[in-house]
Every structure is written in structure tokens, then in C-alpha cells.
């Protein structure tokens, strides 16, 4: 609780979800980014977990609230709560297991079905440190990302490779989308009182929250 409130000094709060098959390393990407930790034995995630970290984007403090969930397809009771209000997503596969890449299309569809069209998506090929076991080529992944208009990066949560970059890139992109939105709305000063919720899209969920009274009522 204390820690959660302590870093309350932010300009934006963005919810980002981690999705992808079981065992691709979602929880370790989360722990690497938010706590700089990695564990070979992190248990399967049941329900949802999340952690936060604030970073600077263009002079603004962006607090990322990153959600992590079970990879097994069956756990869908939580789906709506999980995606609600997400403005960014890391769609993770394991570069050493091709089947996890094959399932990426399905994850993407589910993501699109449950979130706003403006959501920022990055395809993430994790476990890139296992070079000798690579089963998914960079070319294939790049082609997929281009086709689906997502960002793409290979990472290694174990070696701490590109993890920071992947999250930062997503948060920066979200920020630019939100800024654009704010600019559009901003033409009418009455439309956006300070502390108002900013929606990336048309949904009325909390999507991106500008710092203000809204979170401290």
C-alpha cells in the first residue's frame, strides 16, 4: 500500500497488458521491468497480477500499470476485467517454441475484440538469449508485425535485453496517441477540465488518467 501510493507523483497512468501463451515469460518480463528481477522458477500466474513503474516520457512522468495473467487459453473468466481500460499490450511469444508464435494471431484477435482500436501493440519475441534453440526467425516475426501494424522487438528477460526498450517504446507510443487526443479535445478548453479522464478511444473506461483529483477521491 505504502509503496503503491508513494510513487503517486505522475502525469499519466497507462494500463498495459501482457498476453501470450503459457511459459513464454510474461511474468519475468514484468518482474524484470518493474523490479529488475528474474526467476527461472516463477510459478504459473493464476488470475491477474500487476505491478507499476514510472518512467519519463517527454518531460512527463508516465506511470505504467502492467498487468499479467495466465497464458492458458482456458482462463477467460477474467478476460473482460483484464482488458478493461488497457491502452497498450505486449504480445509475447517464445522464440524457441514455434507454436507460441503461431498462437500470436489468436491472441491479437482477442486483444482487438476486447480493447479500443487505438491500443498500442508490440509483438515481443522473448527468450532471445537461447540462440541455439531459435525456432522463430526475426524475418517471420517482422513480417507478421508489419502485416498487423504492430511494433516488434526481441527480448530476453533473463539477460535483461531490450526489456526496458520494449516497455519504454510502448509507453512512448501511448503517450503520443494520448497527447494527440488531448490536443484534439484541447481546442475546447471546457471539454477537458484538469484531472479529467482521457480516453484513448470511444470507451468510457478509464484508459489514460491524467493526474488530478480522479484517483484520490
Amino acid at each position, binding site marked *: 500500500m505504502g509503496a503503491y501510493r508513494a510513487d503517486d507523483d505522475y502525469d499519466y497512468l497507462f494500463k498495459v497488458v501482457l498476453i501470450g501463451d503459457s511459459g513464454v515469460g510474461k511474468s519475468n518480463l514484468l518482474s524484470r521491468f518493474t523490479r529488475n528481477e528474474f526467476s527461472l522458477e516463477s*510459478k504459473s500466474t493464476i488470475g491477474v497480477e500487476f505491478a507499476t513503474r514510472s518512467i519519463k516520457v517527454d518531460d512527463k512522468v508516465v506511470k505504467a500499470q502492467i498487468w499479467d495473467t*495466465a497464458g492458458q487459453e482456458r482462463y477467460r473468466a477474467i478476460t473482460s476485467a483484464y482488458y478493461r481500460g488497457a491502452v497498450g499490450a505486449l504480445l509475447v511469444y517464445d522464440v524457441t517454441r514455434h507454436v507460441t508464435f503461431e498462437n500470436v494471431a489468436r491472441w491479437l484477435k482477442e486483444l482487438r475484440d476486447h480493447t479500443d482500436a487505438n491500443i498500442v501493440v508490440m509483438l515481443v519475441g522473448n527468450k532471445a538469449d537461447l540462440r541455439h534453440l531459435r525456432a522463430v526467425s526475426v524475418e517471420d516475426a517482422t513480417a507478421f508485425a508489419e502485416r498487423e501494424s504492430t511494433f516488434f522487438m526481441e527480448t530476453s528477460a533473463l539477460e535483461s535485453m531490450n526489456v526496458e526498450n520494449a516497455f519504454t517504446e510502448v509507453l512512448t507510443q501511448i503517450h503520443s496517441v494520448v497527447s494527440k487526443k488531448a490536443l484534439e479535445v484541447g481546442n475546447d478548453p471546457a471539454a477537458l477540465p484538469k484531472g479529467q479522464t482521457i480516453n484513448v478511444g470511444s470507451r468510457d473506461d478509464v484508459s489514460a488518467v491524467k493526474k488530478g483529483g480522479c484517483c484520490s477521491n
Partner: protein
Amino acid sequence: MISSIYLNSNNDSPFISGGSGGGGGSGRGRLSLIMAAVAAPSTPAVVFTALAGLALVAVIFYGASRRSNNSNSSSSNSSPSSSSSSSSSSWIHLRSVLFVVSSSSPASCSTSDRGRLKSPWSRRRRKHALSPQQWKSLFTLDGKLRDGGIKFLKRVRSGGVDTSIRAEVWPFLLGVYDLDSTKEERDIIRTRNRKEYEKLRRRCRQLLKQCNESFKLNEIGEISYEGDGESLIQASGSPSSEDATSARQSLSSEERSPDVEYSDDPSSALLEGNDVNNVDAASDTDSTDSDSSDGPEVIQTSPSNEFQEDNTSKTASTEISSSQMNGPSRLPNNEDFATWQRIIRLDAVRANAEWIPFSPCQAVIPESRAIRSAEAVGLKEYGHLEPNRIFHAARLVAILEAYALYDPEIGYCQGMSDLLSPIVSVISEDHEAFWCFVGFMKKARQNFRLDEVGIRRQLDIVAKIIKFKDSHLFRHLEKLQADDCFFVYRMVVVLFRRELTFEQTLCLWEVMWADQAAIRAGIGKSAWSRIRQRAPPTDDLLLYAIAASVLQRRKLIIEKYSSMEEIIKECNGMAGHLDIWKLLDDAHNLVVTLHDKMKLETSFR
């Protein structure tokens, strides 16, 4: 000596620090603890009284000083004038040895109880766990539990089971053996169960082999499967030679089981629906055909009713599942056996090591045996593990796979390994662990159903408990759109496993299993109330415990939290901060207060 001391504490005892307490246990009112020498003194309590009289007085002061305005009628209260500075840690220590014998106290009836007398359960602290001596004394000469197991279940309900006899006791709690079975009957069931399990394992190995061959045929040239495929091939190939050579000397039934069917025609259509059907119906038709030695036993020793129910329900579900298993082709939105096999292995190697101190004999496993057992089930990628954990993981794989075949409607779902791991740690024979798991899953399988009905129903019940008990808290949850109680999702799915320590989990589960066993055996409310009014056994004790854990934090939630996320974080952070016996007390209180109301509610739905 101190003859009778009433110890009062408010709801906001230091126990539930962190801002919980408050009115969360408003129904609890005040605790009246009668110490030691009053009646039915327990040994630790007496010893404690003798040894720590001074500390006790200090704590009494403490308790009394916290009593605040609502003065109790207890005349013997040693109303202290000075406020004590005794620390909460000594208080916690004390609570664990306090023996509670108080019966209902009118003062504890809060408004929400509407004058209902409080049950003795509300004053309960952990009594002694069922001891080996008691356990032995519960049986008649022909090895039958006395009085249909009522006394047995009562003991377990109030204190759990001593570590040394868990392996013997659990099969009774989990319905592997009927409470009124004789030793002879149990031996027959045990033999039959072992054979049936071994048969399931043989099918698992066949399927593994079959999958590999399909992979080989279908995925030629595709690099992606090479890693998986190869390991599977090796895995399925090695056990046959393994079994034939060295494995028999080991104890694990996986390693020991004869691999008869490996030499059979490998192209037989094992993955076809019929065959899967046979697996499900292994206890009836199939067993008589293919394994004649099983025949007579299976038919004669007709097991408990639930067992048969289970089989019929399973056969009905097979139609759907067999289509899922029809070949390794990955249908969208459908999981097949190959997927389960993969995820099972994934989860098995990341099971944690908490169990090790509780399972000394399994803690020391020679590396060679660990590796052999891993190879026997096609487990790879265990390089980073200690031998005992490799062995544990291999056993998890064997049993989970067998279960996926036994109950293909559920198959494997993440979280199930959390439920199995304690059973595997306690019970050293795979086939016994398997049937205990089957017993556990009879109810828990609802948590893993594809249609999620089971989970939603349970979240719904938790919400109702909270709503009935604490409308203020519930309104707050509604305001935060958290009234679906989604934040307790994980507690429901893996039955508090992630929030409790290993030992705490076993205690909670044992108490919960005892309730379920009482209901199975038809030991209704009347049997319990014959002695005194108590919380009736309920199928939903877990849900009451979950609601209690939330109610303990009501103050924090109402005053500090303004989003569902914060409540989720709080719930996820409960790990390591729960007192299991306090939680059970609160849960039983809720049962006493709400059971009838909940029943009424659900029956009118």
C-alpha cells in the same frame, strides 16, 4: 494458579493489523477466552499457564485495555488499571497456545446476528491435530471407523491431522475409502485402484508416443517442432528400455509399471474416440475386456456412489473431449492432449520447493533415480533443479497426465499442479496420490471448467456472503465495480494455495475436506448439534474463509482503496500474512450466521 480468567479482545486485535479488523468481524463481537484450568484444560495451555503466568497477565492487561467502552459482564475480569505495553508478538504467540473452552456469550451478539446465540466455534482456536494414537483408537477390530467416522471428522475439523499420519488419513477425507469401509474392503479397492492407475499411465505413454509420431510426420522440415518433437521422441523411447532394465528397483509406481503395450502395434489408432472412451470407462467395460485379471475385482467391489456417478458423468462428457483428442492437429480455441502434456511439463518444473521440509523421505532422492523418473515421463528442461525437485516434478507429470485422460472434460488446466503438489508430497505412492487427487478434484474440478460456470458461481457466493455480512463494505465494492469479487479469483481457483504457506494450506484443506466428507457421508447438521450448537458442515467452507479474509480487511478497503486494482493488490499481497486458525474461526462464524440464509437464497434462485 489462575483459575478462570476472561480475556477480552476487540475485533481490531493486533492480529489483523494493517487496518483490517474493525467491524469486519462485527458479528464476532468480543472474544471471550477462558484460560486453562476452567474446564477441559489442554496440556499446552496448562504448561503455558505454569511457565508464563506473568506474560499471560501482561497480555490480559493488554486485552482488557483494548476492551474499550463495551464492558463485559465477566466478573472475574482482573480489571487492570495500567495499560500494558505487551507487544503484539507475544500476543500472537499466546494466541497459539490459548485453549478456548468458552461457550456462547450473549455480549457477542451484534445486531447483524439478530440475537442468534453464538456457536462455540466462534471461540475456537486450534485444538490438537488428530494424533497417531487417536487415529488408531478410532478403528474397530475389523478396521472400521467407529460411529461412521463422526468422531474422526470432528477431530479433523477442529485441528487438522498430525503430519505423520496424513498419508493414511487423507484417502478417507478425500473419499478414496468410504468412512464405513473395513480394512479388507480397502485393500481390495487399493489393488483395483493401483491397476487402474497403471492402465491410465500406459495409455499416457502410448499417447505421448503417438503424438511424437504425428509430429514427426506432420512437421518435417519445420524447425519449430524439432526441439519439442525430439525431446518427446526420446522421452517416449527411453522409458521402454528404462522400464525393462533398471527402473524396477525403484519405488515409484511410474518407474515400476510394466510397459507391456509398448511392444504393441504402434500404428493402432490410439487417438481415436473409441479408445479414449475406453480410457474413461477403464473401471468398467474396458477393464474386463483387456485386462481380465482386473475383472472380478472391479465388478465386485463396487465403490462408493460418487465413484459411479463420476464415471457416468465422464462417459457423457467424452464425446466432446474425444474430438479434441482426435489427432494432434491444433484446432483453434481448443486444447488437445498434446497441449496439456506441454503445459503440464512446463508447470511441473516450476513447482516450488516448499514441500521439502514436510516430506523428509522424498527430500533425499539420488540423482540417478530422479533423472530416471524424469525420463520415464518424458520430462526435460529440468537442468536447474535439485534431484528431489526433479523427482517431484516427474511425479506431478505422471499423475497430471493420467488425470487428464481420466477426466478429459477438464484435462489439464494451470493451477491443478498447485493442488496436486501437496498431495504428492504427503503420499509417496503415485497411484494413491492419484486417487486422492481424483477425490480432491471431484469438487475442485469445477474451478477448471471451460465454461467457467463453477468459478462464477463461487465468486457469486463470496459476494453474497460479503453482502449479507457487511452491506457497508459491499456498497463500497459496488461503487468500485468490484462487487463481482473478481479480486478473490486466485484464492478460489487454487483454494488459497498461493496465499498460505504449505502447512497452513494443508490445515485449511483438511478442515475443508472433513466438512465435505461429512456431507458425503450424510452426517448432517443434526449429528453435529447433538452435542452443542455448531457450524454445520458446508461444501463451501473455502468460500466462507475467503470472504472472511476480505472482511478482515474491510476497514482498509473502505477507507483507503478507491479502485478494484488496489483490492486485487491487497488480496495478492495476503501471502504470508494470514492466520489460518483465525481465518477458520471467522469462516465458521460466518457459516453459523449465514448458512441458512445462503441456503435459502440459492434454493430460490
